[in-house]
């Protein structure tokens, strides 16, 4: 059924169609509308057989989900940014125990300075936590990926983060196609746990493992993610059969076949990139796109196959591995290890900085001429940076960095109104 609704509402309705049994809610922007929507559905009786629990922190949210999942319930929560970091210990625990929890991460920057806007720093900080990570490009993608995620998670007994760009997707009103309950029921069977806390057959879950077996247990987590590389395409095909849409998958290419220059990115910025590529193609540029939907497990073979014939690769990423460069490009580099293809890392859009078509046009045209640095920062105000560096050289006690930069930029909150 076609609807014009907010991304968060679309995800809430899709999650409800998956018949979650325990939902833990703790407010943090920009995911809040999702759990609010679900809470309303539970309270009104629209979503039956579901416990909606208002917890006291994200750490508790993940912990309640862990308990619920281990007791055999389909568990869901949502978070972002500081919330994801606050629950990090339990995030690792959920995957270590093999509990198929599904969590939305409404991608948001991580402070300090505190910032509520979008980038991928939060989810990517947990890339090695053992969770499968799927990145949505559109709101349709986001809602579809949640349905696929429950099936994939329970098949492998692994938890999954469905990542969608905060505000850009969560708060955008777009047309989406909402499946029916019958369609989702046909696709997603009831949760049949591999391990469950049950007095009829007592087990001990989560006990200590020493050096004798720890490495094998961790390897199995890796091996299960490798299975996901086969399972995700299979479930994507089944998804298309049931719902008639291409959703999920490991990677997606656009105008890539004959491209000399390939842009790699994740999430909603792919839309802007594709628009720029369309315009450049009209002008005869041989440029294309590789979108990564599945970031964990990282689809090395699919990325390599997509990039192998390119002359250069530009990874445009919304995160900064401080002291190194980009997280996504480090991963892409592994896929290109045996190939002699030039690769550029462009860090863009941190903390919600707009990634404009104008900037991308300029960037891609320079990249085509190999006229960019190996690591560059899109639309970075170098003057502002230099000014602060100079201040630090000259004055020992030069005050809070963020305040200085905003003053230099002439932005005083009280004066904006």
């Amino acid at each position, binding site marked *: 059924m076609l609807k014009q609704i907010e991304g968060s509402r679309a995800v809430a309705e899709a999650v409800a169609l998956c018949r979650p*049994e325990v939902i833990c809610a703790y407010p943090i922007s920009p995911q809040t509308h999702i759990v609010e929507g679900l809470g309303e559905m539970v309270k009104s009786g629209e979503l039956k057989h579901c*416990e909606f629990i208002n917890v006291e922190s994200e*750490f508790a949210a993940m912990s309640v989900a862990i308990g619920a999942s281990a007791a055999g319930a389909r568990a869901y929560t949502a978070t972002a940014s500081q919330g994801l970091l606050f629950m990090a210990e*339990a995030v690792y625990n959920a995957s270590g125990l093999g509990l198929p929890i599904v969590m939305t991460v409404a991608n948001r920057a991580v402070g300090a300075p505190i910032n509520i806007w979008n980038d991928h720093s939060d989810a990517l900080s947990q890339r090695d936590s053992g969770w499968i990570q799927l990145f949505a490009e559109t709101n349709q993608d986001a809602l579809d990926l949640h349905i696929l995620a429950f099936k994939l998670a329970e098949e492998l007994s692994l938890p999954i983060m469905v990542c969608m760009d905060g505000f850009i997707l969560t708060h955008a009103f777009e047309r989406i196609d909402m499946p029916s309950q019958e369609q989702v029921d046909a696709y997603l069977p009831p949760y049949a746990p591999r391990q469950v806390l049950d007095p009829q057959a*007592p087990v*001990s*879950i989560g006990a200590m493992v020493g050096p004798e077996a720890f490495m094998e247990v961790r390897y199995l987590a890796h091996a299960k993610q490798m299975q996901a590389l086969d399972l995700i395409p299979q479930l994507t095909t089944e998804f298309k059969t049931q719902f008639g849409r291409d959703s999920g998958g490991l990677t997606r290419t656009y105008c890539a076949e004959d491209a000399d220059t390939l842009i790699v990115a994740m999430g909603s910025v792919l839309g802007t990139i594709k628009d720029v590529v369309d315009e450049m193609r009209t002008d005869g540029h041989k440029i294309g796109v590789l979108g990564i939907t599945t970031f964990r497990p990282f689809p090395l073979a699919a990325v390599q196959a997509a990039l192998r014939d390119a002359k250069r690769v530009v990874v445009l990423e919304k995160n900064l591995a401080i002291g190194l460069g980009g997280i996504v490009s480090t991963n892409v580099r592994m896929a290109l290890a045996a190939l002699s293809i030039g690769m550029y890392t462009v860090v863009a859009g941190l903390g919600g900085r707009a990634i404009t078509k104008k900037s991308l046009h300029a960037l891609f045209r320079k990249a085509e001429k190999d006229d960019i640095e190996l690591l560059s920062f899109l639309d970075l105000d170098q003057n502002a940076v230099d000014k602060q560096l100079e201040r630090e050289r000259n004055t020992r006690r030069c005050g809070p960095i963020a305040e200085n930069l905003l003053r230099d930029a002439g932005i005083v909150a009280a004066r904006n109104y």
Partner: protein
Amino acid sequence: MSFQPVKFYQTGTFTVGNRLLAPEERSVQASAHRFNSLTSGHRACQGCGEALGARYAIDAAMEACHGQLIAANATGCLEVFTTPYPETSWQIPWMHSVFGNAAAVATGIAAALKVKGRKEVRVIAQGGDGGTTDIGFGCLSGMFERNDDVLYICYDNGGYMNTGVQRSSATPPAARTATTMAVGPEPGNPFGQGKFVPAIAMAHDIPYVATATVADLHDLEAKVRRAMELHGARYIHIFVPCPLGWGTDSSDTIRIARLAKETGLFPVFEAERGEVTAVLKIRKRTPVEDYLKPQKRFAHLFGEHPRSDTIARIQALADKNILKYGLLAEGG
């Protein structure tokens, strides 16, 4: 089953031998059909108060719910000594997640059982004082205020014993731990710090809060039974001496626990909906020295330069408890 209808107390202990009690009054542990939820072969130290407390508490809970029990366990001694994989001492479904989230994991288990309509299955969470009063306190308070259907049991041995005897917010004043060293002008744990979580639990107005010691296991079992009759958030705080951390004789665990109660340093009571409903009176009022002296963690108070000033301050804390909770019997 025949029994001797005679009242008889073991000398000095106030404990009635089980075989002298009516069958229905006997300890769950006295029955050959006890559940052995925490069974033998675990790796606790000799004389471990926590192992003793847990065995009695969990079997009493199992008896009360006819074996339909699931436990969430915080990281700590109890977790480590009972479950070095592939061995486990737990004969009940049991789960350990991380240090600070046992209460929240139990909330999740209870929510799953509720949504699945398994009303007969009950949930407990358990941890040491570190996992309860410090790192797990946020999750504990959250579970309390939501009145989730969980019985939380804290085994309080006054410190982080599993990591090598460090201070917690339940470490008593003047006690030596690895992080409150017995040196300087005020050796040991500072006065005026720490918290008494049973009182904080009561402030949440939850259905049931109780304290107990391993010196009175009948009382402990009765409190677990009462807790299991109720639903919602319930809390039992059990005082469990630690021979390793306290520097006491393994054979002295029960005596030390009894002295904690008899001196008034550890008040034993129960409360419903925030109001104290019963207090275990002191049978034979005892000066705090008798409790402190056998413990090496207080040895600096009794050395070459005895600290009668510090001992007097500890006595004042005991006296305050005695007044506050009315621990003396009428005319006692």
